């Protein structure tokens, strides 16, 4: 009640602070907080192309499967095998091993026949062009 009658911050600063608080709560409410999905991805949208990047050190192309289903579901699947020498004492084991699968829903349908994927120095880069049907079409306006 006090707030509604007297609010010294009823201005932009207050709104900004509330927005910041909201952002912070959202950050802690993320479903993957603590148990991050693997691999972590970065996605860029550049006009009619989507760029997806993921860090997958130690993977070779034949340990990796990438497929697009239903035009807008991108799946990255793979396995990293352990390279432990025989009869060795393990001082540190920080790297992750095993199989993983991750599916991303893309913001628009993509042309699954023209997807380009490269794996270079342990970084996967996928380029997905927008599907013809999803591209904006310019409609000429007649005078």
């Amino acid at each position, binding site marked *: 009640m006090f707030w509604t009658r007297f609010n010294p911050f009823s201005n932009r600063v207050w709104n900004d602070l509330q927005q910041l608080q909201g952002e912070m709560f959202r950050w802690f409410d993320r479903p993957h907080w603590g148990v991050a999905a693997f691999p972590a991805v970065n*996605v860029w949208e550049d006009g009619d*192309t989507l760029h997806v990047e993921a*860090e997958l*050190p130690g993977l070779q192309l034949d340990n990796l499967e990438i497929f697009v289903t239903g035009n807008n579901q991108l799946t990255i699947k793979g396995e990293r095998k352990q390279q432990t*020498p025989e009869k*060795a004492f393990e*001082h540190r084991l*920080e790297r992750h091993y095993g199989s993983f699968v991750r599916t991303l829903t893309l913001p628009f349908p993509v042309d699954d026949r023209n997807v380009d994927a490269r794996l270079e120095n342990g970084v996967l880069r996928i380029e997905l062009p927008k599907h013809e049907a999803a591209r904006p079409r310019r409609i000429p306006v007649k005078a």
Partner: protein
Amino acid sequence: MAENSLAVAQRTDTTNVETTRNGKYFTPRVDIFETDTELLLLADLPGVAPGDIDLRYENGELVVQGKVQPHERKGHLILGEYEEGDFYRVFQIHESIDSARIEAECKNGVLTVHLPKAEAAKPKQVTVKAK
């Protein structure tokens, strides 16, 4: 209990980010194995080309440094789950290492370093004679 909390402290250390004048440095994740003849170090350095790795061994310290070449990106980011940056980590090595025979290779973003033990540090079998 104490051991548990120690393990957690080490884990958070591996994702350490340090900001320096030259940008961000990440601590790479590593596996270290020891066999009778060598120490084997595997480090994840995604995005680092073999030519951009600076590996040094001096005074019992192994310094691993990797530079990520900036990659031009157009458009706008719609999902950002990780940051890119150079890698840096220092290891203290107590075993005596034959530094002249250290070998390293980098393949698919994984650096492999073989640190052969010096002859004096290798275990020797002592035969016990029966009298």
